[in-house]
């Protein structure tokens, strides 16, 4: 077949049009975020790392955690006062703050936001519900918000950044059957944050486009070249996520990268890994209601069989710090004198024999559920499985999903023998970890899925919760932690060093344990 010059020219032009530009081109000023999107955009309905990251960009709070170690920073509020009895809290608001529709943010909007949160009664309201009723929040002046608590509540101030302030003028016209606009806000936005959602660019869990809000109350003078538009394009598979980062079509990954991918990014010239000690604990849960885990010696046999240093040094390559208690070692209330359980198969065998002598069924196959999409949980399970085999324990690994695990752990009889998960930071108070994990009043939630029950621990945790002075609360948490560790209800492995892949063109990345560095107003893109 002969091809004429003209035909060849036409073919070449078509090929060029098809290829057009580098396949890896990204529009200037556009930040492509690869983290997962929350299942629902309403900050009153969903509470997880993804929802926190989104809310940090689209919404504002009275106070906000910034930096690492995190510090409370006045945000919409300029300051606050608290009465001597710890019952009345007043927050002074900035004046002239505007929502994305241009209307002014006032104390009435803050009252509405808290009342809406309490009425919807989803996860973000959980920690506040015991002490806050709808009529506990009031607006004595246009820029003053008052909270009147029924009793003193230690973690109250720490929980303030969990609540995003929403615009009732955007929500109320979209309410259906008294749902507080829950259905509408699930796919829309009504905030005042540094970025605003472009509704046409939103497809649940697939994509979300946000543009810079020029009138944000903080102004932009601190960041002369801020990101103009955020294109949230979650990558479902880790390898694709990392390849996209390396070829420049994605600017940031999640913070759960497996070690091989961390090494791959470290070697790249286009991106780097931001490593930050955080407050995310990895825990293997044991269902204390099911034999043999109802036996203390049996639980200790398991606790001594996990190769903590092998896992931290070899498998996660040092991107974690051993934490032997259910409180991050970077927060007050952490008992420094507790060394926890060490890897010692001889001791494990000793406890194994004692438990057998007490009639515990140590030979029965034990199932440990791991989270298949999160490779580290599988690796931890495999390591544990091989060491337990030398002790004489038959561990079987079961692939599962977090959604299903949180679901089946609502009842003791359906909670697995063992499972593994992280506990992330939502409010920086020991109550976020030990308080919700070991107070028996939380039985039925995934955080308390070991079904541990100790009346002395309950008493200490509740006392700490209803005491306001941190000086008094710290020793209570330390004491509770010592008791919990002695009872060995779970296996506490580490406090994570978050590893987040970041493109080299991204400057100004600031990590904070709350939101895992997902607040984008500080960032800018180099040429």
């Amino acid at each position, binding site marked *: 077949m002969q091809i004429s010059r003209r035909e060849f020219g036409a073919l070449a032009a078509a090929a060029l*049009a098809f290829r057009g530009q580098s396949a890896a081109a990204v529009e200037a000023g556009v930040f492509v975020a690869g983290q997962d999107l929350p299942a629902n955009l309403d900050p009153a309905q969903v509470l997880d790392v993804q929802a926190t990251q989104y809310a940090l960009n689209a919404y504002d709070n009275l106070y906000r955690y910034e930096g690492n170690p995190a510090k409370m920073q006045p945000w919409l509020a300029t300051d606050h006062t608290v009465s001597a009895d710890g019952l009345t809290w007043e927050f002074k608001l900035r004046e002239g703050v505007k929502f994305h529709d241009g209307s002014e943010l006032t104390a009435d909007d803050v009252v509405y936001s808290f009342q809406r949160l309490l009425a919807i009664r989803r*996860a973000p309201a*959980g*920690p506040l519900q015991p002490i806050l009723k709808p009529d506990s929040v009031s607006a004595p002046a246009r820029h003053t918000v008052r909270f009147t608590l029924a009793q003193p509540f230690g973690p109250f101030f720490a929980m303030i950044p969990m609540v995003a302030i929403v615009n009732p003028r955007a929500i109320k016209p979209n309410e259906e059957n008294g749902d507080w606009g829950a259905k509408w806000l699930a796919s829309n936005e009504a905030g005042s944050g540094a970025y605003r959602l472009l509704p046409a660019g939103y497809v*649940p*869990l697939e994509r979300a486009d946000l543009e810079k809000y020029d009138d944000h109350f903080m102004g932009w003078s601190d960041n002369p070249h801020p990101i103009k538009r955020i294109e949230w394009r979650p990558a*479902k*598979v880790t390898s694709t996520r990392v390849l*996209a980062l390396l*070829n420049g079509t994605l600017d940031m990954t999640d913070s759960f990268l497996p070690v091989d991918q961390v090494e791959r990014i470290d070697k790249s010239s286009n991106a780097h890994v931001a490593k930050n000690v955080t407050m995310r604990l990895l825990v293997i849960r044991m269902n204390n209601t099911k034999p043999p885990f109802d036996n203390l010696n049996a639980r200790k046999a398991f606790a001594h069989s996990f190769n903590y240093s092998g896992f931290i040094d070899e498998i996660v390559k040092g991107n974690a710090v051993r934490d032997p208690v259910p409180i991050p070692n970077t927060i007050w209330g952490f008992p420094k004198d507790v060394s926890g359980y060490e890897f010692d198969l001889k001791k494990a065998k000793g406890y194994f024999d004692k438990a057998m002598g007490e009639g515990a069924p140590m030979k029965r196959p034990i199932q440990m559920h791991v989270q298949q999409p999160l490779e580290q949980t599988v690796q931890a399970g495999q390591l544990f499985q091989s060491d337990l085999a030398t002790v004489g324990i038959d561990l079987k690994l079961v692939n599962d999903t977090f959604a299903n695990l949180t679901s089946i752990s609502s009842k003791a009889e359906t909670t697995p023998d063992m499972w593994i998960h992280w506990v992330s930071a939502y409010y920086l108070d020991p109550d976020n970890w030990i308080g919700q994990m070991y107070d028996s009043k939380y039985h039925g939630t995934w955080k308390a899925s070991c079904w541990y029950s100790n009346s002395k621990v309950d008493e200490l945790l509740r006392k700490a919760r209803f005491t306001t002075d941190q000086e008094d609360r710290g020793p209570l948490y330390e004491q509770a932690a010592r008791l919990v560790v002695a009872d060995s209800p779970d296996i506490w492995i580490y406090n994570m060093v978050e590893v987040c892949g970041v493109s080299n063109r991204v400057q100004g990345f600031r990590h904070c344990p709350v939101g895992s560095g997902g607040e984008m107003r500080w960032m800018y893109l180099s040429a």
Partner: protein
Amino acid sequence: MLGFVLRRALSAIPSLFGLLVVTFLLIRIVPADPAAALAGDNATPQQIAAIRHQYGFDRPIGEQLIIYIGQVFRFNFGESQYSHRPVGLDIRQRLPATLELTFGSLLFATLVGIPIGVVAGVYHNRWPDFVLRLFSITGVAIAAFWFAIMLQLLFSMQLDWLPLRGRTGTGIVLPSEVTGSLLLDSLIAGRLDVFADALRHLVLPVATLSLGALASIARFTRAGVLETMQKDFVLYERAVGYPRWRLIWIYVLRNSVIAAVSQIGLLFGALIAGAVVVESIFDWPGIGNYTVQAILTADYKVMLAVTLLIGVIYTIVNILTDLTHGLLDPRLWEQL
């Protein structure tokens, strides 16, 4: 023909009903409590109980099933537990992307697989045949996940020819939706830039998804050609000097592809299932990706609706396959 289609459509209803009931029971009979997953982090037991009641998860399973069947008969697939959006709307938004990917893959597999099969059949036990057999075995045996990553490494990372993931590049303003297919909609709107961008994004997912299908179609075509080549009419035509390739491409091929057409029908269902993996790797915003998310978040109404949808698509494709058989060989109408 119309009677045949009606008969097949009516006979499919009990199958689809059975599929609905079995899937519902399988999803809801496991000891999971979707309310706990829905409540999220930091939820209290009281909040979980309230959600269980709100969504009717505390009602007897039979009652929940009857309510759900009633909704489906009114074409109401309920709301996603998480996004609160109607599942039907989400599916409508994502289905065109999956169909574009699946039809693209099937078209590519057919257009390439049939000629390869013919050539292999004609050159039986000679080198083109050996190459094809090797390719067929590799194509069927290779894991889509691995193949996709290899394509990404070569064409996106090394050569920088094709996009790594997604359906469009950043900053692309999409044309207004007419068919849902980005290729067709961009042509309708005269947006050749979007068409070229969409086509480039389609190449790697189609190559991955079609590999197994292509190998399978080639194998069935080859077997059909080998059988037909032994028929008397071929011997006669060759004896009278009928041009060889004309004989093969018109008469031999027509009599050889019936098995391959059946295979194409079956492959369509397999491709829809395979799209789950391919869409995840390439972040293709279709039904497969939607299903994976639904499984990971235990969004059971989405899982039910997607299973039913795949069942309906399978049924339609089976009917179309039988019709195609009849068109290729009118004698088969009598048996249908």
